């Protein structure tokens, strides 16, 4: 073992880790924000909206995430849209994750008893307010476990960004390996960083889930 390849490149690896965190965090936020209206559209009374959301959900979940990343990076320029590597990676990962997130959100909204929706209507509470103050807090308890397990998948998914020329943790690792020919040391460090980030994400989840738990 020759740990100097790690200590000597600690700065590069740290910067790459920050990139990974930034990509994962942006994707996590954007994919939930994008998934929410899609989930509402999926059960909308307006048929075209329902169809669009249905097609979106089916195609994005059927396609490999890597295919979506390539579509954003290699495919969009064909339509005259040129994205830099990082935005392309974030776009691909977000579109992919939103397809799953919208199904979890939809299932959670459906799991709130119908009577709750009817009571809101009977009390004349406008739908947006009802959603925010009454439905969502109840749906959250059902939504959080599947949603957060999908978000840890997103952290792992951010490694795919290295394949569209983003210099995040895995990409940096590949570059360092071809420079130094010390794959073992570098990959061990990278694995530890991913597992640590994963641990942080799981701890955050636990905290958030506790927030939404019913008082015993």
């Amino acid at each position, binding site marked *: 073992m020759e740990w100097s390849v790690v200590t000597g490149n600690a700065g590069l690896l740290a910067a790459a880790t920050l990139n990974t965190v930034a990509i994962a965090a942006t994707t996590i936020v954007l994919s939930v924000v994008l998934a929410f209206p899609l989930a509402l559209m999926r059960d909308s009374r307006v048929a075209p909206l329902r169809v669009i959301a249905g097609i979106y959900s089916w195609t994005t979940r059927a396609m490999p995430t890597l295919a979506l990343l390539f579509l954003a990076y290699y495919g969009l320029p064909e339509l005259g849209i040129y994205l830099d590597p990082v935005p392309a990676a974030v776009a691909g990962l977000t579109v992919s994750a939103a397809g799953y997130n919208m199904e979890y959100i939809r299932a959670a909204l459906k799991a709130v008893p119908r009577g709750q929706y009817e009571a809101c209507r009977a009390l004349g509470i406008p739908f947006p307010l009802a959603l925010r103050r009454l439905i969502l807090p109840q749906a959250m308890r059902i939504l959080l476990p599947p949603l957060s397990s999908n978000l840890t998948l997103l952290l792992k998914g951010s490694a795919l960004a290295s394949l569209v020329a983003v210099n995040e943790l*895995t990409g940096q690792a590949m570059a360092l390996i071809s420079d130094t020919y010390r794959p073992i040391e570098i990959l061990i460090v990278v694995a530890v960083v991913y597992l640590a980030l994963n641990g942080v994400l799981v701890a955050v989840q636990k905290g958030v889930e506790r927030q939404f738990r019913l008082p015993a």
Partner: protein
Amino acid sequence: MDVIVAQFPRFLAATWLTIWMFALVTVLSTIIGAALAILSEAAGKAVSVPLAIFSWVFRGLPELVVLLACYLALPAAGLDLGPVGSAILGFTLIGIAYQAEIFRAGLASVDPKLFEATRALGMNWRLTMRRIVFPQVVRTVLPAWATFSAGNVKAFAVASAIAVTEVMAVTRQSIAMSNQPFLLILVAAGIYAAIASILMVLEVLVSRRFAGQTGANS
């Protein structure tokens, strides 16, 4: 379209490679994962603690990192499996981690009273497993197994990063030759979706069979 026609034989070969790698990985990881789950149930902490750590590591790491470890780090340690061998090893390790969790949950869902009943009836462990536990576990495990496996097909696209000429690798090469990335990527996605769909149909068939056999239709 010309590029698709010209590259058709390569896409076909790549699809076949993806299918047999996936089939092999699924069979291996299901058998080993199920065996480890049963073993950890039977042998207690000596197996269940290492298994939990193993499964946490391989479920926590990006597929790409696991593949790179098999493809780059193992040769440095003296074991060179080549691209396809590395991909098969990497995905099997990841698969075992998930399958073991799926089967552990399935075993845990079997009512403990049933074990007491089989003991009272004098059934030995093997018979209990085969006639009582297995038919129930298959039913509870099947949806999770199929969901994971169908999703896992798509992960095989990552193997293109370690020089395996599967569907995504051929797609990338074809993109480099032509200026039709959109079409090519959609074709590739269609191939993965088709493989995943076959699995979903298989799930319906198997679940129907097991639902019929045991009578109860839950």
